[in-house]
């Protein structure tokens, strides 16, 4: 069993969960994830390691409740325990001294981008961070990002906070202002990552995205997480999850992620009937599908 040391809300339906996992805390690198099961008969779901502390022996997860597994996890608190945490999994982020890099996080994607932003800064890059959310409550980790990045631009779709517009609008502004950008890391809903890829493509700015296909084992055994990159089939759990944004087939990814849409809705309906306070929470624009 893995003990939960701390759990608190970050935004509506988004929780920060700190789990005791000393070995993973020591081994993990930015960009890697774990596969967890929240209950003994639960689904195996992948979650990025958002932060860790090797001395204190914990890892932090930032979880958006979108379906049964994530919502079950998000109901747990300090003192609870979860049966399975396997990791670290996946290839670490490519961390190099690129020059000026932009880290773009959309909704809970910011949590996934955060550790890479930290590592990119440590590697000597000038780091610009764009944090997007539907409205002010979904702009995550702004303080944390400010502590490590050179520039931070919160954006909201409705203009309730920060820059009024999508993360891609802010990125376009930066490019049009003549800023020289060497590398872009974009993590968030699929339509957002696709849009970022289209913004940077004409300028040949190297761009990496972190893909979120449906996974089962996370070790390269099932092939369920396969994605098409540059016309080749890759297993995101072992070959990724980060890939060259200009080569990813985002349409395929979006379609594959809808494979169980009907099933998941039934599960959620059942879950909402079971619990006292219905938990149908708003989802980040674009959703994870």
């Amino acid at each position, binding site marked *: 069993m893995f003990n939960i040391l701390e759990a608190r809300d970050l935004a509506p339906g988004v929780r920060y969960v700190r789990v005791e996992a000393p*070995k*993973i805390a020591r*081994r993990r690198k930015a960009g890697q994830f774990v596969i967890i*099961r929240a*209950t003994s*008969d*639960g*689904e*195996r779901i992948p979650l990025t390691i958002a932060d860790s502390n090797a001395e204190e022996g914990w890892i932090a997860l930032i979880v958006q409740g979108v379906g*049964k*597994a994530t919502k079950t996890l998000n109901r747990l608190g300090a003192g609870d325990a979860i*049966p*399975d*945490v*396997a*990791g*670290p*999994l996946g290839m670490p982020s490519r961390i190099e001294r690129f020059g000026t890099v932009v880290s773009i996080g959309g909704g809970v994607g910011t949590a996934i981008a955060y550790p890479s932003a930290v590592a990119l800064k440590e590697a000597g890059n000038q780091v610009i961070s764009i944090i997007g959310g539907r409205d002010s409550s979904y702009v995550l980790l702004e303080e944390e990002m400010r502590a490590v990045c050179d520039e931070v631009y919160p954006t909201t779709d409705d203009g309730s906070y920060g820059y009024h517009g999508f993360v891609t609008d802010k990125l376009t502004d930066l490019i049009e202002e003549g800023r020289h950008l060497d590398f872009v890391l974009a993590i968030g809903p699929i339509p957002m990552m696709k849009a970022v890829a289209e913004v940077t493509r004409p300028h040949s700015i190297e761009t990496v995205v972190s893909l979120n296909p449906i996974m*089962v*084992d*996370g*070790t*390269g*055994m*099932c*092939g*369920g997480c*396969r*994605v*098409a990159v540059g016309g080749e*089939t890759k297993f995101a759990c*072992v070959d990724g999850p980060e890939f060259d944004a200009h080569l990813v087939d985002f*349409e*395929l990814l979006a*379609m*594959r992620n*809808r*494979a*169980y849409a*009907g*099933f*998941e809705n039934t*599960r959620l309906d059942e879950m909402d009937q079971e619990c006292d306070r219905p938990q149908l929470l708003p989802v980040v624009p674009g959703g994870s599908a």
Partner: protein
Amino acid sequence: MTEFTLKDRMAMARQKMPEQEPVERRGNFTEVNLGFTAELAVAEAQRCLMCRRPVCIEGCPVGVQIRDFIGLVAEGDFDGAAKVIKLDNSLPAVCGRVCPQEDQCEGACVLGRKDKPIAIGALERFVADYERLNGIATADAPPVSTGKSVAIVGSGPAGLACATDLARLGHDVTVFEALHVLGGVLSYGIPEFRLPKEIVQAEIIQLEKLGVTFTTNAVIGMIDTLDDLLGEEGFDAIFVGVGAGLPRFPAIPGENLVGVYSANEFLTRVNLMKAYKPDAETPVYDVTGKTVAVFGGGNTAMDAVRTAVRLGAAKASIVYRRSEAEMPARNEEIVHAKHEGVEFRMLANPVEFLGNEEGVLTAMRLQEMELGEPDQSGRQSPVPITGSEWVEDVDMVVVAIGNSPNPLLQKTTPDLEQTRRGTLVADGVTGRTSKHGVFAGGDIVTGGATVILAMGAGRRAAVSINDYLNTGEWEIEPEAPLVG
């Protein structure tokens, strides 16, 4: 007890394994074979000629003392029979169910030449089940500790067999498994209706009683490398039994459409994650009333197609590019699948999967094959017949054309020599690899093979690990046959 003459014995009919009726079993996941009763077992055992030179044993990769255990069954001493089997095989309840007996022990039995071989697998299964159900399994008391420790990577049959022998020798054994459940393919691959998971668990409990430590969720290569295990974790030796778990895809257009599964994913969702149960949390594609095609001719393909039948598919077929004679699956599985209504379509191969604008599979393009020259496997190779393509509707496809070794571990262990096929290079007798202190066996060395071969490799490696721990000598015969 009645004395039978040779002639009497030869005249007796082979006992038939009682099984669930096809109509009934099509709708459930409980075991198809029901097992011999004590009467049937004794009657079958009495057919054995007690050969002076029991050739059946030569057919068994681990050399189970077949004649002796069958002799004890004939006398009604099931407990004694269990003890004899366990000398050579620590997972008899599993092997009795899944060994390709027709190619191994039963294939070698003298009675097979004239008539019907002794049902060795069914008897082995009976004895093991009898022992388990009557609670007489006497786990040997943990022996005196040698103070040496061994890490076993992977909890499939190779790892479990190696762990058993090393623990019995008094070594401190820890098994690391990537998944949250132990057993390897026995747990995530082979379905409940062929191998109840309860049996695999019972075997693992026996090992725990022997003092073996199990660590799940431990993906070696990611959390610890082999060097970490030998270094900071302080293990004296390692056995690598990580299997061949990387699913192959045909590399044809449309293979990533929703509705196209690898057998590994389909079976993992159903077996490991229990997607066949109505209240399961893990989904599997709903095939109720749908058309399913499974590509392949091995046990994996049979398991997948029979699983699809049980999930309610209206039409389920095996599509295989050679002819039935070349199918590597166990005979029994082929027969069972046919009785369950599976359609067998030979000499056909997919060239494309077609989908709708939602990215969901709707049809497949197949082509007709013919058999040409023998290939490396000695089987006639399938050759496409030009201009023979056609398209037909299909709702779900399962690709079961084989697995390759998963490169995860090798990636972080560059000094572990591998073949071009990605299998590990290991001495065929001792299991020693190119890396000092590291042994390997099972599917990771041979490529996808069988449970009993993996167990045999695990046991041979245990002998050699014990030698190494006792002498500290690391020698690899350069001329020794390298498997891989």
